[in-house]
């Protein structure tokens, strides 16, 4: 089990096309979320989604890596409300590689070390598993 995750996809479209879909705000608004993103290093932006309990629906980002059409990274932060500390403080990184006439796209979402690391270490510990089984058995 890993603390962070990585997803790899292949698309039959050239890297330039995929890059545009990842960096053009109108394109992003169509497949990802409403946004004021700009492919400019240091640009601060938001993704806007429907608020849910525990999250105000706004993802706060800042472009931290930009190497068209190969590499893009931004921070990905979320919180329950405007006056609260970020309880999601992570990084999303996109890597594009030519794959024949298409593109191999890798998405990495990292930085869950704070809480996810703790959760994973608990889940991997035998004592915890045993405890969980007992608790779950009790609950049923």
């Amino acid at each position: 089990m890993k603390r962070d995750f990585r997803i790899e996809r292949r698309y039959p479209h050239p890297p330039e096309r995929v890059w545009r879909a990842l960096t053009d705000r109108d394109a992003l608004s169509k497949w990802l979320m409403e946004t004021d993103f700009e492919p400019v290093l240091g640009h601060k932006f938001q993704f806007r989604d429907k608020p849910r309990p525990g999250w105000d629906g706004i993802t706060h980002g800042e472009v931290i890596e930009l190497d068209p059409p190969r590499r893009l990274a931004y921070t990905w932060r979320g919180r329950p409300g405007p006056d609260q500390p970020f309880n999601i403080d992570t990084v999303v990184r996109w890597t594009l590689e030519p794959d024949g006439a298409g593109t191999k796209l890798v998405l990495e979402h990292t930085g869950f070390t704070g809480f996810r690391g703790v959760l994973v270490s608990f889940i991997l510990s035998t004592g915890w598993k045993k405890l969980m089984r007992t608790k779950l058995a009790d609950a049923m």
Partner: protein
Amino acid sequence: MGAAAQRDAVFRALSDPTRRAILDRLKRREHGVNALCAPFDMSQPAISQHLRVLVDAGLVRAEKRGRERIYTLEPHALKLAYDWLGHFEQFWTDKLDALGAFLDSEE
């Protein structure tokens, strides 16, 4: 407390390194407050304050035994939070499908 509120309380509780260290000690076995204080360079009231946050989040159970309060790990709250993190993976899986559909639609 609803599931979302509890999950939030769990994340807030886990955001502090002292509280994570306390949980880590409780992972091995239950402890009284004095034993919990020992490895920390902190007063007992400060540790008790952290313990209260953990109890409120449902991560730790306090039980009076004789003259001491014994603290035990309550792993179910962690499980809820962990399951929720899995939703990110689902989110991106769906979004990458949507990206594929978007690219195809541009043809």
